[in-house]
């Protein structure tokens, strides 16, 4: 499942990336971490795990004294003014496979985090070494950013450094400068309450930028699988024949029940036809498209017969 800190540290060694390791009691905030790891070892980082309204996730890793203005960041990403907020606790476990207080750039090593966008503070580049948690908050690791870059490249990621304090104008003729870092895939994480995607707006969390993201003290949800939109979070009526038929039967019965006003059966069937044909055609088209897309995917990855 998720990478462990030992697996990560082994990987760093394999890649011959130089780092120093500091063990300490588990820490949830930067202030606490600072008690155990002195700044002579490197620059501490604060790490934010964020989410936008379209279920896309971001890790923003910055120097502790860098001011990260969420409104500005949201605009620069092309999400409008209030488009981004702290990700919920479940997402931490599901996507980053780390616990509270442990957001770190290293988390993108996990397959589950493949659609999470990682933005690094440009100011890190001026530091000899920077400090991050290696997937566990009872250890801190300090390394040169070139080392982190090397690690990221080894897992197929291009390191992205951003001037987080910049506040460029975003408008009709000035495209949001960070929009290109918005993930192309959104991710569905099973939420605590059963919200449909139409109702959004989780209560704004009052978390100051200095503290690592701490959600409420509820125990994390039992592990649901991380689903990408590619899987079954999409209406399964488009993929599954039984659900397809169920959808048709449901809609037809509902309409039958609501429309029967003692009129003739012929008139009723006419009404049914009129009201349902376009809906069902749309349903069928999406079903067909989904099947074709799956076939296409399989076809493009098909391995030629071994002779």
């Amino acid at each position, binding site marked *: 499942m998720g990478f462990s800190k030992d697996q990560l540290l082994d990987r760093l060694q394999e890649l011959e990336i130089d780092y120093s390791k500091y063990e300490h009691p588990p820490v949830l905030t930067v202030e606490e971490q600072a008690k155990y790891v002195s700044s002579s070892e490197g620059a501490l980082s604060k790490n934010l795990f964020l989410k936008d309204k379209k279920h896309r996730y971001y890790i923003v890793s910055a120097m502790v004294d860098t001011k990260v203005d969420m409104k500005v960041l949201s605009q620069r990403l*092309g999400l409008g003014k209030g488009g981004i907020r702290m990700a919920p606790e479940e997402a931490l476990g599901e996507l980053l496979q780390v616990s509270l207080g442990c957001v770190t750039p290293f988390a993108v090593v996990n397959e589950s985090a493949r659609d999470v966008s990682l933005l690094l503070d440009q100011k890190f580049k001026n530091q000899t070494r920077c400090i991050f948690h290696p997937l566990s908050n009872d250890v801190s690791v300090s390394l040169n950013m070139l080392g982190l870059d090397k690690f990221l490249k080894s897992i197929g990621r291009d390191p992205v450094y951003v001037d987080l304090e910049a506040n460029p104008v975003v408008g*009709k*003729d*000035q*495209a949001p400068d960070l*929009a*290109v870092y*918005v993930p*192309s*895939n959104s991710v569905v994480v099973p939420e605590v309450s059963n919200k449909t*995607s*139409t*109702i*959004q707006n989780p209560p704004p969390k009052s978390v100051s930028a200095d503290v690592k993201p701490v959600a409420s003290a509820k125990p994390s949800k039992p592990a649901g699988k991380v689903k990408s*939109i*590619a899987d079954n*979070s*999409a*209406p399964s009526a*488009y993929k599954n024949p039984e659900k397809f038929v169920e959808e048709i039967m449901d809609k037809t019965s509902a309409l039958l029940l609501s429309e029967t006003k003692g009129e003739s059966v012929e008139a009723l069937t006419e009404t049914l036809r009129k009201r349902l044909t376009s*809906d069902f*055609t*749309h349903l069928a*088209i*999406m079903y*067909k*498209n*989904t099947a*074709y*897309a*799956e076939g*296409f*995917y399989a076809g*493009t990855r098909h391995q030629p017969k071994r002779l």
Partner: protein
Amino acid sequence: MEVDKKDEREAESSEQVVNPWEVSAKDGGKIDYDKLIDKFGCQRLDESLIDRVQRLTSRQPHVFLRRGVFFAHRDFNEILDAYENGDKFYLYTGRGPSSEALHLGHLIPFMFTKYLQEAFKVPLVIQLTDDEKCMWKNLSVEESQRLARENAKDIIACGFDVTKTFIFSDFDYVGGAFYKNMVRVAKCVTLNKAMGIFGFSGEDHIGKLSFPPVQAVPSFPSSFPHLFPGKDNLRCLIPCAIDQDPYFRMTRDVAPRLGYSKPALIESSFFPALQAKNGKMSASDPNSAIYVTDTAKDIKNKINRYAFSGGQDSVEKHKELGANLEVDIPVKYLSFFLEDDSELEHIKKEYGEGRMLTGEVKKRLTEVLTEMVERHRRARAAVTDEMVDAFMAVRPLPSMFE
């Protein structure tokens, strides 16, 4: 003959302006579509054509045809003639992906094109002009490509059949046979002519000048050798908004010189902004439009607060005088989206004669739009990146005419 292009350059603020990059009415009034048809030299789509469509397709014509949303054409009757003879055609439409936020106005040509695809059982190519937006809106290449893919998802959600539809982005597809046609077209249009048609000037960069052939050549089947091999005579029908007419006037002018058939066009009027101010819904003013990402609550709010009402100031006055249907936006929107002709007639009658109040009309509109947007959202959620890849793959479409 086509209308003399010189006229376009004289379009000042005292005249209405309609071109691919700007649409505004004269002196804050409404767009005069009759004048536009005259000036552009296209034809009105009359009842007889609509009846013919009904006969040929054995189904009720699309609501946009019945209500005159698609109201002008060039050579649509010839397309129907050929179709009656057993000669098919293909559809070509497109989108300039300048923003992620799609509103209902953007969906209109796609909704209509989907109907045409189903009714006539013909294939469709959809062009995403990411290069155009990169140049005109000064987006980075990567950003415009990203937007193209995002927009493709909304387009697919309109319900196109993947076995009959090819979506392509200019940055991905331009080259090969497509590019050869672009050069052939470019050779036929002088700089002066381009400046006359499109209003280019010495200040514009050369990217803009060389763009028009890109939008022109999807009208020619030889641009898609993987789709229409050997079918050089296949005709093309282009459903689009009327502001795109200049591109295709140029294309129709050039086609015979290249030995190609002229593409036919079927053109729509503009979807009015919520607040009704002259012109069309604009992606840069969020309250002028209903977006496909709006929640039911957003839609209700926007309709209630911003939709320009033709009702009277007081209930008494309203009961006496009735509503001004000419300027009323909710009724206009219903005429676009309310399928049931008799219900629309009823609303117009009751509201116009003062017996129905604005609130009721707005409520009905909110229902209709919410259902539409919700259906779109569901379909959009089902569009995966793999599905986009499938639609955009350069592949043959063996059942495209079935």
